[in-house]
């Protein structure tokens, strides 16, 4: 009997032959060992194929690989966000517990609204108003910035091998801002506009009250303004520091923004990164990639092709389409909400304080898992991280105290003693705490005083940090009552005092009050000692 073709045997191995044909082939196989061997080999091959395919290729197919890539992106995104928020968050930690009279609230740079407004006004003022006056000063600051940036980036490049994309962009932005002579199209007026029939071939750097693009910018648009409106097309990235950024046209690259309000009615090719008080992606709006932002109020009605990651302080509403995962952290005031029309192509993760903060309409479609995590505040004592953090905090304060004592022994010991003057220090400290920011702002507004204001601000922050060192040292001394006044006694007193202050700090309400008192006392002692030290010796 003649043998069959390999293709016929392949059909047999796949179980794709009709019953009678299968029977005929089986009859032949019973007599032909070569064909039987071939069929066995074909079956084994099928098995190899199934096995190989089903074992998921990590890189090619698994979402683990996919998320790895996203995370690496996420880290650099986070780095940018951290850079944007660092100053604000450092300061706000200290000022959370302070209450400023309502009448002065508009002036308070540490309330979210006041802070963003201040930043925008500052940027605007700095870039727009004072260049003539500040020409010399800006050159110096520019050089310092440049040196710092070059040094920093060399350090970064050396440490990490290379800079990631968004980080690099941020660097470029800072460089362009600090270098006045780059070959860019720079425009500087009250009202900068790219007319509908106009095309800018370079990157456009604009500082104005209103920047409006009706035409085409072939490079990036870097704008510092009160209002930035893009109605035309930007082929590169849009980088803004503005009170209001509005895109109703097309941005083909990314949007990097520090704005009070960001409105997207148009098309965005890539992603949005930044911090805004209010984010609105209109139902006509389309984001080609993802969103990574810190926002006050977020309202997503349009489409985002990839993931959305937002840290939200007030509320987040999603009624549009999100191609991949949606991650929202916060939203503790207004809550997080997905309406009936919301569509999430991946997982939904929300980190909230209370479950009632999350509202998911029944009609909302979520392809992946709903992962709603409660951030229970009370649980901080159960986390090891908390203790590590406290230990680091304590070690840091000890180190600062010890270094201070080594470098300025008499100043530190005198300041410690001045804490003992009680109410006087407390009153003075309170006055400094409240008065200094006002004074700094007034000095900064004159522009000439800007460097003085910045130095004052740094001294102010240092004073607030050191307050606990002096109060701690004083407290320790009072309790231990050492016979001598050696440095060792002082440091031991500091350790005991700081430990006590740390423990008291965890008592609800009282802790905050004590913390506030400590800051006032220490700051008062600091101010008094500064005053004394600056007075000529009689």
């Amino acid at each position, binding site marked *: 009997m003649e043998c069959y073709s390999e293709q016929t045997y392949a059909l047999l191995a796949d179980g794709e032959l009709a019953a009678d044909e299968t029977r005929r082939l089986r009859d032949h196989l019973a007599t032909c060992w070569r064909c039987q061997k071939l069929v066995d*080999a074909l079956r084994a091959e099928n098995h190899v194929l199934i096995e190989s395919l089903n074992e998921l290729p990590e890189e090619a*197919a698994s979402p683990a690989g*996919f998320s790895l890539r996203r995370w690496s992106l996420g880290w650099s995104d986070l780095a940018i966000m951290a850079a944007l928020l660092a100053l604000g968050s450092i300061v706000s930690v200290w000022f959370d517990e302070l209450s400023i009279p309502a009448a002065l609230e508009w002036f308070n740079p540490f309330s979210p609204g006041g802070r963003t407004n201040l930043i925008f006004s500052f940027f605007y003022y700095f870039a727009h108003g004072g260049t003539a006056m500040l020409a010399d000063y800006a050159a110096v600051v520019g050089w310092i910035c440049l040196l710092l940036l070059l040094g920093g980036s060399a350090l970064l490049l050396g440490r990490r091998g290379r800079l990631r994309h968004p980080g690099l962009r941020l660097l470029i932005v800072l460089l362009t801002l600090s270098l006045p002579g780059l070959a860019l199209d720079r425009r500087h007026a009250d009202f900068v506009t790219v007319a509908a029939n106009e095309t800018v071939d370079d990157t456009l750097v604009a500082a104005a009250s209103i920047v409006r693009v009706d035409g085409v910018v072939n490079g990036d648009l870097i704008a510092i303004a009160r209002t930035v409106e893009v109605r035309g097309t930007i082929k590169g990235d849009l980088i803004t520091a503005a009170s209001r950024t509005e895109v109703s046209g097309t941005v083909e690259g990314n949007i990097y923004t520090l704005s009070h309000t960001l409105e997207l009615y148009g098309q965005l090719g890539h992603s949005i990164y930044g911090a805004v008080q209010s984010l609105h992606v209109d139902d006509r709006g389309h984001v080609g990639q993802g969103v990574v932002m810190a926002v006050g109020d977020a309202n997503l009605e349009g489409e985002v092709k990839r993931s959305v990651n937002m840290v939200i302080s007030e509320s987040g509403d999603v009624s549009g389409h999100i191609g991949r995962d949606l991650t929202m952290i916060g939203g503790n005031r207004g809550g997080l909400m*997905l309406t009936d029309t919301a569509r999430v192509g991946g997982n939904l993760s929300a980190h909230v304080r209370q479950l*009632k903060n999350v509202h998911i309409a029944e009609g909302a*479609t979520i*392809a992946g898992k709903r992962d709603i995590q409660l951030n229970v505040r009370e649980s901080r004592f159960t986390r090891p991280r908390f203790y590590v953090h406290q230990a680091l905090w304590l070690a840091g304060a000890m180190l600062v105290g010890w270094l201070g004592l080594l470098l300025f022994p008499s100043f530190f010991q005198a300041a410690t003693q001045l804490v003992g003057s009680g109410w006087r220090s407390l009153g003075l400290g309170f006055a400094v705490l409240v008065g200094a920011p006002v004074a700094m702002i007034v000095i900064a507004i004159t522009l000439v005083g800007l460097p003085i204001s910045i130095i004052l601000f740094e001294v102010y922050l240092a004073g607030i940090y050191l307050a606990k060192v002096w109060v701690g040292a004083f407290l320790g001394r009072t309790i231990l009552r050492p016979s001598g006044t050696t440095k060792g006694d002082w440091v031991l007193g500091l350790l005991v005092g700081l430990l006590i202050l740390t423990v008291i700090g965890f008592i609800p309400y009282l802790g905050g009050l004590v913390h506030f008192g400590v800051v006032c006392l220490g700051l008062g002692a600091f101010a008094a000692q500064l005053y004394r030290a600056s007075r000529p010796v009689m």
Partner: protein
Amino acid sequence: MDAKRNMAKAPQLREGGTRQMEGMDLESVIECARGHDGEALGEIYRRYVRRVIGLCRYMLDSRESAEDAASEVFLKLQRSIESYDGSIPFPRWLLRVAGNQCIDVLRRRQRGRKVFMEVPDGAAVMEAASSEPSPLGAVISMEERVQVRDTIARLPENYRVPLVLRYYSEMSYDEIARQLDLERNYVAALIFRAKQELRRRLPHRSK
């Protein structure tokens, strides 16, 4: 906005609810998912998203479109799961759905025409020449499996798609033919050729 917020239902999540689902057997999860239980659908996503993306990755050329297709599969699952009758194991069914989704994507790219054309060279009656490399060996190591996968991923689309549908989605020749709008014989020929091409590209694996 507030009114909308009040109308919206609070999520039915209890602490530990997710854990419960994780331990549940597949039938119960599917049953819950049929009742539009978001948590159950999420659990199905958790269990099978890797495999579905894996399939889409083989079928489509870019990671981006593969992830898009996988998202689409799970977004549609809320409705499509009603058509699952239990006649085949659920993972197989899901992979078929995913395979069809990918074919849709490929077809859309061809503006509604066939995913790929039948080449009128009589491939269906192709006979194995004696010089063709023999089937891949049975026992292969982890590294070799990686090689096989990579080689499959690099096969031309008209070989890769039927091969993956057959051995990953476990579709029958008839189903593949129907989905790709091709003759059954032609599908058989494509799969056969795909394997031969694979053997040729993995020479040291065939004996």
